[in-house]
């Protein structure tokens, strides 16, 4: 780790990584030791590493996987779920995994709804983001989780920060933070890995022998975020620590009040169909995109209709085991 001027063996690296996560959780007041945490898992290194670390720290953390129906040449979604199930069996056997299959629940895969909708101009990323945000928020709220944790790392945060800075998106800048507090039907969201470089989360996953999906989402290839990550990597190569400094100093400036707070959320309305918060009266963006109305599809979005498979799914595929995770190495 050139930016920390530190080189560690595998065992001590793992210990440093876990302890650093705990420090970030405390520094940003993310959650308390008895919190009921829902981890959004994609099958990539960051989210699986996060679930692993939270379990090793003794937190009660369940997982949520959203099946997007994105396959491409690499069977991306199938491969992702397989990695997650394998991980859950080996590393967090006492946790619960919620699986929401979008096509099963709403009738179309993400690529299909993207083609059928004007949102995103044919690129599925916008429809995907909207759907994931919606499902994560609903499930976290309706299943009684205190907080939703995502595996966003420093490279993710720095790339978004750069994008928003270049366009002076002050509203987005004001909202970019390691913690988004719960409000008006929106679940509390936290990013415990926000100070870890992407290389560091990947190293942790390799050191811990976590099998993750090495390939990017087929639709992410060439996207703008990756472009900014490449630019930031060039900067980092010449100036070690540049990414961390960019992000951490931004957080300090934000805390000092340099960015305008987001608009008053008292203007949020409840969607007339699903009840989720939305900025405009009537149906929310999710219900509009999926063409869900009270008359035509109300049943699709009733709480019990979300296709959550927890313990039963583990039993079906025989992935639940009785052993606990060995943390004696720490």
């Amino acid at each position, binding site marked *: 780790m050139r930016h920390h001027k530190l080189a560690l063996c595998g065992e001590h690296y793992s210990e440093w990584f876990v302890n650093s996560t705990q420090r970030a959780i405390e520094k940003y007041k993310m959650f308390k030791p008895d919190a009921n945490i829902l981890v959004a898992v994609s099958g990539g290194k960051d989210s699986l590493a996060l679930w692993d670390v939270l379990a090793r720290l003794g937190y009660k953390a369940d997982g949520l996987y959203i099946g997007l129906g*994105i396959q491409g040449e690499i069977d991306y979604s199938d491969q992702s779920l397989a990695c997650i199930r394998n991980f859950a069996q080996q590393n967090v056997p006492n946790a619960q995994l919620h699986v929401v299959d979008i096509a099963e629940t709403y009738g179309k895969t993400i690529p299909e709804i993207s083609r059928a909708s004007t949102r995103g101009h044919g690129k599925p990323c916008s429809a995907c983001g909207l759907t994931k945000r919606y499902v994560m928020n609903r499930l976290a709220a309706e299943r009684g989780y205190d907080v939703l944790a995502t595996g966003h790392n420093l490279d993710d945060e720095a790339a978004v920060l750069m994008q928003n800075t270049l366009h002076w998106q002050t509203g987005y800048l004001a909202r970019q933070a390691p913690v988004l507090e719960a409000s008006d039907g929106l679940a509390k969201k936290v990013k415990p890995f926000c100070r870890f470089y992407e290389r560091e989360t*990947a190293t942790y996953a390799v050191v811990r022998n976590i099998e993750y999906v090495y390939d990017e989402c087929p639709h992410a290839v060439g996207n703008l975020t990756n472009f900014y990550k490449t630019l930031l990597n060039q900067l980092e190569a010449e100036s070690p620590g540049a990414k961390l400094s960019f992000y951490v100093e931004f957080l300090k400036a934000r805390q000092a009040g340099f960015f305008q707070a987001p608009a008053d959320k008292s203007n949020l309305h409840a969607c007339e169909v699903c009840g989720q918060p939305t900025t405009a009266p009537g149906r929310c963006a999710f219900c509009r995109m999926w063409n869900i109305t009270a008359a035509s599809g109300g049943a699709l979005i009733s709480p019990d209709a979300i296709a959550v498979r927890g313990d039963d799914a583990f039993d079906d595929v025989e992935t639940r085991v009785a052993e606990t995770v060995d943390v004696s190495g720490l």
Partner: protein
Amino acid sequence: MIAMVQITFRNKKFEVKENMTARDALKKIGIDPESVLISVNGKLVTDDVVLREGDEVKLVAVISGGSAIVC
């Protein structure tokens, strides 16, 4: 004759001269050193390691998984 070292990355193979650091080797073959982890003979190494003839060098991409940043 100059000894060469083979580097594998995403099913592609590259060759570089031995006795250069892994970081220099990556620059030589046009791969951003910040975007990969380096494994030599099955062990993760730092990028200042000098590559020798016969080393089995594999690169692991660090960008993976989910498509969109959604929070």
